């Protein structure tokens, strides 16, 4: 089984040279640490920054320079700043090549739920609904099952939706899966030491297994 760090590391392999990428909060944030050397990638932060750099050194924090998670960050040479309308404008216009975000549930037709649990305090969707409705290429980083041991890859989401038919790829601690346009989770890779049977048991939605399923590789 993969750790969160390893999930992030595996997702980083999906990032190609020249990509503009938006990283959500949680595991997606960790992806920044594993972007392959030698490729040029620009991170977009939806509060209005292209070219997000690492956290500042101690004592160099700037209250005016934060990311969408409200963390103090830095810029890089070539960065640009813009307002929230332009930020979501470029997201909506699909100028951002890849969006990586977390989820509570994903359904086999690509619906995602990640913003609201009935009965619990609702914090809000932030930019998630804009991102999932707009992005041409979304990868979900998530745990395959919840703390109660129930699958989060479902025939149909039970929680209020964030977006419909938008998720194309999922990376969990157990597997890499594509969500097929016609429906179903197609198993692409499995975590080292994890059996197809275990993935099948952990997947409530329709799992499609065809041919040899290689182990996930991180190098």
């Amino acid at each position, binding site marked *: 089984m993969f750790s969160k760090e390893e999930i992030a590391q595996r997702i980083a392999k999906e990032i190609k040279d020249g990509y503009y990428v938006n990283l959500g909060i949680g595991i997606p944030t960790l992806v920044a640490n594993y972007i392959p050397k030698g490729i040029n990638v620009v991170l977009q932060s939806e509060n209005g920054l292209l070219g997000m750099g690492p*956290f500042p050194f101690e004592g160099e*924090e700037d209250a005016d320079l934060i990311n969408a998670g*409200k963390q103090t960050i830095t810029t890089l040479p070539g960065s640009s700043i813009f307002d929230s309308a332009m930020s979501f404008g470029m997201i909506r216009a699909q100028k951002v090549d890849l969006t990586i975000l977390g989820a509570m549930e994903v359904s086999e037709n690509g619906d995602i739920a990640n913003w609201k649990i009935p009965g619990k305090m609702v914090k809000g969707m932030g930019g998630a609904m*804009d991102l999932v409705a707009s992005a041409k290429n979304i990868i979900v980083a998530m745990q395959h099952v919840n703390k109660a041991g129930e699958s989060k890859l479902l025939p149909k989401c039970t929680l*209020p939706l964030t977006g419909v038919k938008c998720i194309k790829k999922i990376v969990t601690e157990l597997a890499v899966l594509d969500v097929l346009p016609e429906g179903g989770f197609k198993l692409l890779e499995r975590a080292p030491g994890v059996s197809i049977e275990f993935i099948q048991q952990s997947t409530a939605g329709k799992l499609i297994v065809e041919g040899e399923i290689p182990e996930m590789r991180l190098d």
Partner: protein
Amino acid sequence: MINKVVSGAEEAIKDISDGATLMLGGFGLCGIPENCINALVNKQVKNLTCISNNAGVDDFGIGLMLKQRQVKKMISSYVGENAEFERQLLSGELEVDLIPQGTLATRCLAAGYGMPAIFTPAGVGTEIAEGKEVRNFDGKDYLMEYAFDADYAIVKAWKGDTAGNLIFRSTSRNFNPVMAMAGKITIAEVEELVEAGELDPDYIHTPGIYVHRIFQGKDYEKRIEQRTVRKSEG
């Protein structure tokens, strides 16, 4: 040029009365109009509808207004950092309208650009689409969302001039320029107020035509919500 300068936050907000709809710039605690918020707290104006991406924290930003129960309704995209907010929401004292962040920004833009409505795919097929017009363009569904109608927009800029021109610094820009365009009356507080002519016309983010009142704020705390650092190298 037309001089927009007022003496300070008290004068800037003096005609804001109970029941007004306010837009407040900022993202989290970054780029919020601290001086005007404090003046609104002191003025104890009530039953406000506040359009703001976030709702501050318990003891800073819009949280200070919530604590005094000055806010009837929040229109925000994310309100998660505030215990008093949660209490009022669960007790039914506070109405909350949660809308996607991009929709929030674009409804401001629409107001500032005289467009009565815009189309966005955000929220299609979700509960926020309920009661809204869905329209298909080129095979993709969009929601029609209306321009905001705010009595006042209250924004914070880095520099401003006496003609009302504004320049924002780094990511404290966020919602400030789009809200500045969207208020029937727009109030800007700035860290540094200069004479008209001192700012380069090419680098002004908000032209003065959108700003009705401007003043130099004081005692900015600029609180950091998530102080994240890396260790010095070597």
